[in-house]
């Protein structure tokens, strides 16, 4: 080849790469920052990305039900910012299902460990981080209440159906400390040693706040709690006294009995609306059993309020 051909080839390559650099650099920079040109609206839109790592690899990805061509690990780019339903599936493993949020110019990094299917073992299809769960038995139904990193859910006992009941997130340590849960009149009532919470589950439009504030904080330590007085009041032994918390008017309570000893115990018979108390007799070392019929004590209040209603 003659020198002039080398010279031509060299100049051609130089201008080709220079041109490619000048044209592609702004495009790549814009693309790197998450911009995407939308032909329909003729506007630059800011997108986000989803980076998925899985164990095992080569997992099929579905985003809002649409199969993604690429297997994991991989990155899905140019996603418009909103919430998506992500499903990861692989033969021999439980599918992974979760809600993810894509934000503009950000990458949502998902790192998932798929659990292999074991004979006779079922796994929920929804992959929230579950902090705690309770089995709630009602007359005709049984539900599992789960406290997760995404809120509070009711789950069918066959692990199929799931329904969000609250946006409120109870951190793992808090969810683990819950001693008992009662579902009553579209309310979830649950408590640990220190606090009592009530979550309204009647409202489909969840409140904007996702932090749950206790309706009652014990002076010492919550020992026993019973739903009574026509399932309107929560009768609580808080170590110092027995009180009744009005579940219809949160924040309203009244004292039933002052305890003499820290080791006092109570039992509430909802059928007869009677409160039994094991407590020490003042100025003695002996415990005795006390009985209080509650209805006459506070029944008048309820009747009066009903009349007002």
């Amino acid at each position, binding site marked *: *080849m003659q020198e002039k051909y080398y010279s031509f080839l*060299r100049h051609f390559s*130089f201008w080709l*790469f220079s041109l490619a650099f000048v044209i592609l650099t702004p495009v*790549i920079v814009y693309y790197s*920052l998450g911009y995407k040109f939308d032909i329909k609206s003729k506007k630059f839109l800011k997108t986000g990305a989803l980076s998925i790592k899985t164990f095992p690899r080569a997992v099929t990805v579905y985003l809002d039900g649409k199969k993604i061509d690429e297997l994991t690990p991989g990155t899905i780019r140019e996603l418009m910012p909103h919430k998506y339903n992500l499903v990861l599936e692989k033969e021999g493993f439980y599918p992974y299902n979760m809600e993810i949020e894509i934000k503009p110019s950000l990458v*949502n990094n998902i790192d998932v460990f798929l659990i292999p299917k074991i004979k006779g073992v079922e796994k929920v299809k929804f992959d929230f981080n579950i902090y705690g769960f309770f089995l709630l038995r009602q007359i005709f139904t049984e539900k599992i209440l789960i406290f997760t990193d995404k809120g509070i859910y009711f789950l069918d006992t066959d692990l199929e159906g799931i329904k969000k009941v609250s946006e409120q997130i109870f951190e793992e340590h808090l969810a683990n400390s819950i001693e008992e849960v009662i579902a009553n009149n579209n309310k979830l009532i649950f408590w640990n040693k220190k606090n009592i919470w009530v979550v309204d589950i009647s409202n489909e439009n969840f409140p904007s706040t996702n932090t749950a504030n206790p309706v009652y904080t014990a002076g010492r330590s919550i020992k026993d709690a019973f739903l009574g007085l026509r399932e309107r009041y929560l009768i609580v032994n808080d170590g110092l006294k027995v009180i009744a918390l009005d579940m219809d008017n949160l924040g309203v309570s009244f004292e039933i009995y002052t305890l003499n000893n820290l080791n006092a115990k109570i039992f509430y018979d909802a059928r007869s609306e009677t409160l039994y108390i094991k407590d020490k007799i003042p100025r003695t070392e002996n415990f005795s059993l006390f009985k209080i019929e509650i209805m006459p004590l506070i029944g008048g209040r309820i009747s009066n309020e009903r009349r007002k209603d």
Partner: protein
Amino acid sequence: MREEKIKRILEIIPGFLSWFIIFSLIILFILKPLSAIVVIIVYLLYWVARLLYSSILLLMAHYRMQSKKNNDWLSMCKDANSDLKFEDIIHVVLYTIYKEPENLIIDSLNFLKDTDYPADKIIVVLAGEERAQGAYDKLKAISDKFKQHFLDIIITINPKNIPGEITAKGANATYAAKQVKVYLGEKGYDFKNIIISCFDADTCPDEKYFSCLTYNFLVNQKRYHTSFQPLPIYSNNIYTAPAFARVIETGSTFWQFIEGMRYEKFITFSSHSMSFKTLIEVDYWPVDLISDDSLIFWKCFLKFNGDYKTYPLDIPVYMDIAVGKNLLDTIKVQYKQKRRWAWGVENFIFLAQHFLKKNEIPFTVKFRKLYQILDGHVNWATWAIVISFITPLILFLGKIVLKNSLALFNLSYINSVVFHSLSFILLLCIIISWEFMPPRPKGVSRLVYVSFLFQWLLTPFISAVLGSFPSLDAQTRLMLGRYLSFTPTPKTR
């Protein structure tokens, strides 16, 4: 006084620019991390384009060399269509010698003797230095061994402490060339027909080097305005040199290979050849500067008002890989050698000073040449540092500062594209370097080839530590006015 001030400003410019690039990226990241990431993305894309362009040049250079591999240059010389006669051409081969061992010089002369070019047309000059004790006796003994093979062997001993001279290769070569001028004048040779080759003591020309050089000299219409640059292949001691030293020197070879395709930017480097007439006209190599090999080109460029070029020859010369007594010493030797090469940034000051007085050269040409030198040296000092250290640092710190930023995520992706581009060039280098390999000496295991393959994994470390750092060191010294003294590279075999 004014000239001194201008010189100091010029000395500061390259180092300032290099440090500015490094620090500005770090400061920008502290102040505006996202902007720093965008700048790094642009910088990396620039290098992807540049590396891919370089790989095209490498392939072209390789193709050109292969296509001329089987040329019968000697016959071509005899049939060359030229105003000069082949029979009249005389070669002066000047070896600059300091303390190189006798066996090394003998090896070089054996190679010279065995070229296909008629040895009775070659005058050998053994240019020793008074600083090296017993230099004359050593060179005399060598001369006696080879005298009958060449037209003549001249021994010159450069006296020490000549006013205005520094202890550098250029001063020795100039002293010897002046003696040769007297010798040739006395013998009645026409300087127009003399080609001088200035070789390091370890330079072993390929058997076709002088016939190829002569042919190109004969057919070149601007032969007195042209230097001839062979491809330096560092392979004489390739089977005994440490892996990292092999990688560096092979890298140097490939750099020259690529540069050889850019005619208008190509300048002389290390061993080179040119017309003796031109050498006299430009008053020989510089005696007071270190990078004599490239400065001789710029002296000619200035002398002929920009009408001067370097022509890349397609036949190589073989040289030694700089090694020390042990691994650590080799690192030191390599570092110092690369720093000395990087001291070639003094070309910028030399040229800028002369350009100020030279109105015959158009401003655009001056600007392009100065930019060419500055661009080469500043990139040399910074690119590996930015790619090997600053980018990973920003990627690491970015994960803390910017967490889930898409730009940061894409930067790591683009960074991997750069490394893939580098790997592509490395693969080309591995394939091409195989062809430059001399035959395996007896006693060297075949397993050495395994290390030849895996040596390339050292490239990222080497490009930063023995690529950019020596260059940054040289520029910083120049910037601070702490001038480098010439350190000859020890040659042992």
